[in-house]
């Protein structure tokens, strides 16, 4: 199975880019909107002062002795003082004829307010007129007033600077927020990934921790997938156990018939055939036993119950039980090591693992050889089973342990190594490991170590 996943794009980058891009666009919009609003307001401010000023000028016009007099009010110019000392120009016309002021300032009939260039500066002009009616006189006074826009641009520059700073601040805050929001969102995925990764190889239970609403369908699918997987695994294990159980009883019957028949058969070649048959039946029943052991191991490992036990005592009991069988095969079984090795574990599982290891050794031991079981407490509680057989093939010793995984290769290792698989599962369930070594003087050693 390949571990690499095809990757297309990144959610995190996409989120961050979208959020930051959005913030940048918003900040720009904010800047331009506020600035244009400020321009409008500032211009309105200047316009209304100009308007008031020109109105007070027009107001000062009077008709005396049939002639127009215009006594410009001091205040009309006073109110035009600005912080930037803006220049002021004006022109007074009567029916289009220039009266006083700046002759190069033309009166505009159409628009009251205009921005134009005068004497090298941008000026804002206001044009206004008033109709004067005297005894036998009707005349129009037109005034155009202009002011440079230095104070206005100073104000606008200041506003622009402030708004720009505000926009940058807004953008920075939004960017920080988008990073935070993105990692908080992606963090939920990371959390799920970690909890999937951290699961033990046998753990197919559903995820119980609460997840965000958006991830619920994913976790639901995952849980349902694992439920189906778990069900199908346990079904197949149940099936194997059921099959092994059902095969063992008829096998025992067949064996007893074969033994009985062997007593009655005299012809040597027939006896040989019967012996082979008994041997094959034994092999089959051993395999069935291992399958049962394996199914039991899997079940108990999933629901491990720890009891306080003494490993030495546990092994001694097993040795005592197996001695008759070992004797039958002309082998010796000896136990040595520490006097007492207390450990908290599942005694049935550990016994099953050790029995399978002894079983394996018996299978490979030559006649009249010894099988040694050593129980030690340091550095970790361990049980080592050594024989004087041919040992493991040196080119496979590294990969052998790795092969014993639940499920996939259980079927292919029935004959040669289901015992090692059982021992491995027991070791892993107790947080330990299984080590395979060859002795220098010949023979294989298998060490079952446990963690505290």
């Amino acid at each position, binding site marked *: 199975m390949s571990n690499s996943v095809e990757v297309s794009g990144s959610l995190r980058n996409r989120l961050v880019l979208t959020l930051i891009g959005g913030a940048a666009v918003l900040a720009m919009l904010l800047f331009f909107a506020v600035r244009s609003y400020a321009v409008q307001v500032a211009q309105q401010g200047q316009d209304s002062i100009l308007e008031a000023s020109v109105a007070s000028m027009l107001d000062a016009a009077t008709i005396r002795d049939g002639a127009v*007099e215009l*006594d410009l009010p001091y205040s009309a*110019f006073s109110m*035009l*003082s600005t912080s*930037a*000392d*803006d*220049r002021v120009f004006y022109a007074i016309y009567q029916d289009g004829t220039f009266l*006083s002021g700046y002759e190069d300032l033309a009166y505009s009939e159409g628009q009251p307010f205009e921005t134009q260039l005068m004497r090298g500066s941008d000026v804002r002009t206001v044009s206004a007129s008033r109709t004067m009616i005297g005894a036998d006189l009707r005349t129009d006074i037109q005034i155009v007033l202009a002011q440079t826009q230095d104070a206005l641009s100073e104000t606008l520059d200041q506003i622009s600077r402030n708004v720009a700073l505000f926009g940058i601040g807004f953008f920075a805050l939004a960017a920080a927020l988008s990073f935070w929001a993105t990692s908080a969102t992606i963090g939920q995925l990371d959390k799920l990934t970690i909890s999937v990764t951290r699961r033990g190889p046998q753990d197919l239970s559903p995820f119980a921790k609460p997840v965000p609403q958006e991830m619920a369908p994913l976790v639901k699918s995952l849980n349902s997938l694992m439920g189906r997987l778990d069900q199908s695994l346990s079904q197949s294990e149940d099936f194997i156990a059921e099959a092994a159980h059902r095969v063992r009883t008829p096998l025992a019957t067949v064996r007893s018939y074969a033994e009985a028949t062997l007593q009655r058969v005299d012809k040597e070649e027939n006896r040989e055939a019967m012996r082979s048959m008994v041997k094959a039946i034994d092999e089959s029943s051993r395999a069935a036993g291992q399958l049962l052991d394996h199914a039991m191991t899997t079940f108990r490992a999933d629901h491990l119950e720890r009891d306080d036990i003494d490993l030495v005592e546990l092994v001694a009991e097993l040795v005592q039980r197996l001695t008759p069988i070992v004797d039958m095969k002309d082998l010796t079984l000896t136990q040595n090591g520490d006097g007492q090795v207390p450990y908290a574990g599942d005694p049935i599982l550990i016994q099953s693992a050790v029995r399978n290891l002894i079983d394996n050794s018996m299978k490979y031991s030559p006649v009249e050889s010894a099988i040694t079981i050593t129980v030690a407490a340091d550095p970790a509680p361990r049980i080592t089973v050594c024989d004087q057989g041919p040992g493991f093939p040196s080119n496979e010793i590294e990969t052998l342990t790795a092969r014993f995984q639940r499920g996939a290769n259980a079927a292919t290792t029935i004959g040669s190594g289901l015992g090692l698989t059982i021992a491995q599962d027991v070791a892993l369930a107790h947080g330990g490991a299984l080590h395979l070594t060859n002795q220098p003087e010949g023979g294989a050693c298998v060490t079952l170590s446990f963690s505290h």
Partner: protein
Amino acid sequence: MRYTLVLALISLSAAAGAQEWEDRQLFNEGGGDSALRIISSTDTNLFAPLIETFVTRNPDVAVEYLVTGTADIDRRFRASPGDFDIAISSAMDLQLKLANDGFALPLEDIEHPAWAEWRKSLFAFTSEPAAIVVNREAFDGHPIPQSRQELIEALRARPEIFHDRIGTYDVRRSGLGYLFATQDARASETFWRLMEVMGALDARLYSSSSQMIEDLSNGTIIVAYNVLGSYAEPRAARDDVLEIVLPSDFPTTMMRTALVSQETTQAGAAEAFIQFLVSYQWEDDGEARTLPPLSEEDAIERATIGLEPALLAFLDTLKRDKFLTEWENALIQD
């Protein structure tokens, strides 16, 4: 500093000889390729020490100092702004209008309080109140008037004493006189009553403060209204019959201003001069000066005429004509 002062009498052979000046002096002659031309309304004797100090500090700058009346400065400067590097005048309104009309060069580097400069192109450097100067002998046994109202009463009480013996500016000819008169008229109606009283007494009209003070000293007149206190002080110090009265009702205070011509060919030297002028005249340094320093206290406490566009109002032709008509009606009673 004698060696720097060269009294240059107007040479008739000079090309500029066609123009007439009240006074014309060259300082530090030969100090530069061409002299910094300053057109000014301030009498040379008051301004010379300042220029001498400047040329001592800047030996490579020569200064030509040309004196004429305030109205004449405005006329000549507008006619040929390229002929002058700096214009100095006591007529704040005319100077402001020159700056407003674009004749002044902005000097961004000069640090000056906002109330004493306009557009970084017009710089005030003195605070000078308009004063009433009286001859004490004429008031022997009578209180010396301390305000315009008291002056009116004093003049009315003894018309025979004051007839033909009071003087004031001819506002038609003097820019400063016009500025003082318009500001007085703006402040109070008392001004017009005073003008009427003075008109009834056949007041003499002058185009400069120095002439008025001259006539006060020689006894031609015994009261002068709206004289520059700064001009009167040296004379009053010598001649103890003269007394300077700053009207207690509202003292009108003027600031002398300087600007650099937009068309100057010596912008560097001109700016250096303005920089020197404003720092020399700043009130905080303890140097003895011939011109009163710029005083922030005066600007706040006394009615100092502000450098603002409102000064343009009285320069409007229609308004000026109207004002002069009223003034003539009050003062010139044939």
